[in-house]
């Protein structure tokens, strides 16, 4: 649009105050040997097959790695998503998860 010489406006910011505070990521691992990996799934886009392939590849590379099946945690994107996700921290700790792989963002 081209400027004109008409009325002048002092326009306000239309967004809302951001509520998120930046938080640190968890400490990363140096190996998966002897560790437990939890699969978290939103029950779409063939995540079960992707996890299966990853599990094979990771087990070949780290023979001592263990896995927690996605069914243990429930659908992370279903009708009860908020409850499932809210329960994750405690559930992951109780089950001894050392790492999480979460899919499928597609």
């Amino acid at each position, binding site marked *: *649009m081209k*400027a*004109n*010489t*008409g*009325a*002048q*406006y*002092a*326009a*306000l*910011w*239309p*967004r*809302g*105050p*951001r*509520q*998120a505070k*930046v*938080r640190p*990521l*968890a*400490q*990363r*691992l140096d190996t998966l040997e002897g560790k437990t990996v939890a699969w*978290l799934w939103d*029950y*779409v*886009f*063939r995540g079960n*097959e*992707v996890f299966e*392939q*990853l599990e094979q*590849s*990771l087990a070949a590379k780290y023979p001592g790695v263990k896995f927690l099946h996605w069914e243990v945690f429930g659908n*992370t*994107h*279903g*009708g009860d*998503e908020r409850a*499932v*996700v*809210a329960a*994750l*921290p*405690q559930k*992951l*700790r109780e089950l001894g*998860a*050392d*790492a*999480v*792989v*979460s*899919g*499928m*963002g*597609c």
Partner: protein
Amino acid sequence: MLRASVAAESAGIPSATLVCESFMTLAKAASQGLGYPNIAVAPVRGHPGLQSKEELQRNVRELTLDGVLDALFKMPAAKTLGGEPGPRDVICSGSFEEVNDYFLQHEYSDGLPVVPPTVEKVEAFLKHTDRGPDEVLGVLLPDNRAATVWSVAVNGVMAGCRPEYMPVLVAAVEAMADHAYGVEHSGNTPGGETLMVLNGPVIKALGFNYTQGVMRDGFQANTTVGRFWRLYLRNVAGFLPHKNDKATFGNTWRVVVAENEEVAAKIGWPSHCTEFGFRPGANVVSVARYTGGNHISSVSGATPEELLPYIADAVLRQYSWQIMFTVGQGYDTVRPLLLLSPIIAETIAAGGWSKQRFKEELFKAARMTAFEFERILRDWTQKPTWNLKEEHEAGRIPAVFHESDDPQRLVPLVWRPEDFHVVVTGDLGRNSIYVFAHNGVLGFPVGKEIRFPESAGGANE
């Protein structure tokens, strides 16, 4: 997926989120609102839905595996969120055209000219609510921003609303912020768009169209409040196309639909707001997301029995993959919406059918075979097996889905008759209906009462 990963990170457990390559920009945008702007993701090549088993396995081995290991072993560089203006900060001064150019460049506009939101205009809106300007109506994902009354007024100005619409806008944002509605899903691939439905004396008081062309733009109240919804999703929730809004195709925002309460009252049908538990006559705005819909023309018949098959068929044809929200991805979250033109509703009522009876008959008539229901779930939602019998015996779905083992038995679209929502509206003289395909848990129906300021002198009653 990112929300689940964030839950793990918050518990001190490193995560890798599997993200299709075309969703990387969305992941980056969403991670900021979650407070983890440097969260690690592992790429998934192409889309799994279009790959053979062998291709998928190869892609996982060749690309995704390394991404997972990187995410779990390497600490990403720290990131910060940049500073932002305050709510009352003037971000641009200039002519109408200059302000609009600035808003376009900074992605605050939907592409149409906006009314410059000045302090004077915002304050005019605030006079139509008793809520304080800094009151927070909720916090909206994915940007994780506070939905303040002030920001409602700012976006209402921009949308071209009149100040007296403010109570409707506040109620609409309360509905947007209701967890049951699920605003965080508004950028998902189906691109379903929200429909707002209005009930109560507010319809006439504010001049909403509730007759012919009720879904057409051109009526200031219906049109601008509908536009406001999309602007608010953009500016406060943070749904920007090519960023947090990943709609494959998307829709333009819908204008507000108002019910014809005169006709509903005349035939003794409770208005739509009662489906949310409000008393008849209450001022209510309700919202829900729909992936699409269809106009059904010339619905003919002299009795409800004659009309029902056409209506039931129209409802059924709107639902294919969406039944994953009946059984599956979101159990019991499908709520089909039907708009009935007044003479259709009058003909049904003249046959002695209450609104509840109509829903009960529709529940029995809008059915498909169990074989087809399971086939859709199996073939089109990518879960390898579906068995309604097992779902019922596990206590996850009601008996109506498994009244026998016959695969040709008929099963409903929804769990109960009341799950059908019905609004009487549209052209007084035309025998049409409109059926919306509901988006299930990704936009569940929510209704909120519209509260007028005390100075309005009893307008709440």
